[in-house]
């Protein structure tokens, strides 16, 4: 291949570019990113960066030397608007066209929006939200008790705001962590003086506040919505790349179009989108290997892993919880907000979760997929 275009300059895009060079690609490498910033790390945006303890510089995913070593052409602040798979042209929002025989789709996700609310996805979102939260606002309402919502609520509490979290589901994070652990996560809010309203939707957001479907009005100076993201695939409309809740790929990130692979939040590998930091990083090396090989020679099927820091508690999770039949605590207790537990399906470990217990989590995750549940030391 002579030219490879990586569309997306966040974690998945950067790791793809790095993997291309690491795997010996010495042709022309173009990286297109719609944000004007060099690749930065998103997880701190709802935590340390929003709080003000993590500065802009430490968000960088690569230092100057690392970026220079990639010898890539960076098209930042420019959107890819169209992919013509017959001519292999990527059309950019500044009118330029990149002709590439290889394309890595790493365009990520766009937050689902709710009129009258702010989202938190980008660095610019975080800068604006921090200004709003530290600029005299007293009352924050967070719509959605997922990880981003919970982390924003936690940070805003540390900043001294009065915080209410609204969740349409009966239990926060129940679909990801199961009802038992989800309920514990919900209690974290209450532990720290944050109100949690579950099982109620948002009718509208008006100037007076957030109007709930049960008629209650929550007064708010700032409203943040953390209600998930949709894959950024609009620019692929009209191309031959198959899309359906993400770019459809095999287990190696390979799409239906030769020379086109997809990684990260935008990619649906074997029917599943893994919207996790670690997945994006890991998928890149695999997809790039397949791109350079011209066939699926490598696959990635590691279980999804994620972590969340909220209210001074580090939550770590790996695996799949759907269809589990038992949760077994291996260390600590939920009441202490310090524990490690495994999800079992017919006595096989299908997931591991912990709060403030990295030590046991690290050991238990090695038992995923096994029936032998020995007590870790």
């Amino acid at each position, binding site marked *: 291949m002579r030219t490879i275009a990586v569309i997306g300059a966040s974690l998945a895009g950067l790791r793809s570019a790095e993997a291309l060079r690491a795997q010996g690609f010495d042709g022309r490498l173009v990286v297109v990113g719609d944000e004007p910033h060099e690749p930065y790390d998103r997880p701190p945006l709802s935590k340390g960066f929003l709080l003000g303890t993590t500065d802009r510089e430490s968000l960088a995913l690569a230092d100057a030397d*690392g970026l220079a070593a990639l010898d890539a052409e960076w098209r930042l602040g420019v959107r890819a608007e169209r992919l013509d798979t017959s001519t292999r042209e990527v059309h950019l929002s500044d009118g330029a066209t990149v002709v590439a025989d290889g394309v890595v789709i790493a365009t990520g996700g766009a937050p689902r929006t709710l009129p009258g609310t702010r989202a938190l996805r980008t660095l610019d979102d975080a800068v604006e939200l921090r200004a709003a939260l530290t600029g005299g606002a007293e009352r924050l309402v967070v719509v959605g008790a997922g990880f981003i919502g919970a982390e924003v609520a936690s940070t805003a509490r540390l900043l001294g705001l009065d915080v209410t979290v609204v969740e349409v589901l009966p239990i926060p994070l129940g679909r990801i962590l199961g009802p038992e652990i989800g309920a514990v996560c919900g209690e974290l809010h209450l532990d720290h003086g944050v109100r949690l309203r579950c099982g109620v939707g948002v009718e509208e957001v008006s100037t007076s506040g957030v109007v709930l479907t049960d008629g209650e009005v929550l007064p708010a100076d700032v409203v943040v919505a953390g209600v998930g993201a949709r894959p950024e695939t609009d620019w692929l409309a009209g191309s031959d790349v198959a899309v359906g809740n993400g770019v459809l790929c095999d287990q190696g990130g390979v799409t239906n179009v030769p020379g086109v692979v997809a990684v990260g939040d935008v990619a649906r590998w074997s029917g599943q989108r893994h919207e996790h*930091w*670690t997945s994006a*990083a890991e998928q890149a090396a695999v997809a790039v290997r397949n791109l350079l090989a011209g066939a699926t020679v490598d696959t990635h099927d590691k279980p999804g892993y994620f972590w969340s820091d909220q209210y001074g508690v580090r939550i*770590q999770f790996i695996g799949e919880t759907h269809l589990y039949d038992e949760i077994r605590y291996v260390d600590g207790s939920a009441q202490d907000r310090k524990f490690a537990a495994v999800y079992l399906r017919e006595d096989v470990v299908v997931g591991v979760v912990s709060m403030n217990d*990295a*030590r046991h989590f*690290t*050991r238990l995750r090695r038992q995923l997929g096994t029936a032998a549940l020995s007590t870790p*030391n």
Partner: protein
Amino acid sequence: MIRVCTVLDLPPGEAVRVVAHVPIAVFNADGELYAVDDTCTHQDASLADGWLEGCWVECPLHASSFDLRTGLPNGLPAKRPVRTYPVVVRDDVVYVDTAVQDVA
């Protein structure tokens, strides 16, 4: 020199965290004792909580592994090494010499 613990308190496969100028993790890797900065150079996580395999420790947050002999990471996401410190055993007590820091 900072006193860490007795030799008996640090059996093979275990780690102990002590607070010096920075937190330091002391490992017993199959009988060999090693001391490195406890905080992962990538993101805030305690290496003493990590997974010890041979003379490598895997960070419990993002799974970068560090070579306890040199402090060097094996790959992303960590790029910078952790500092290493000499470990001294005297009268069955483990000490770390924080005056000597090595950065690979």
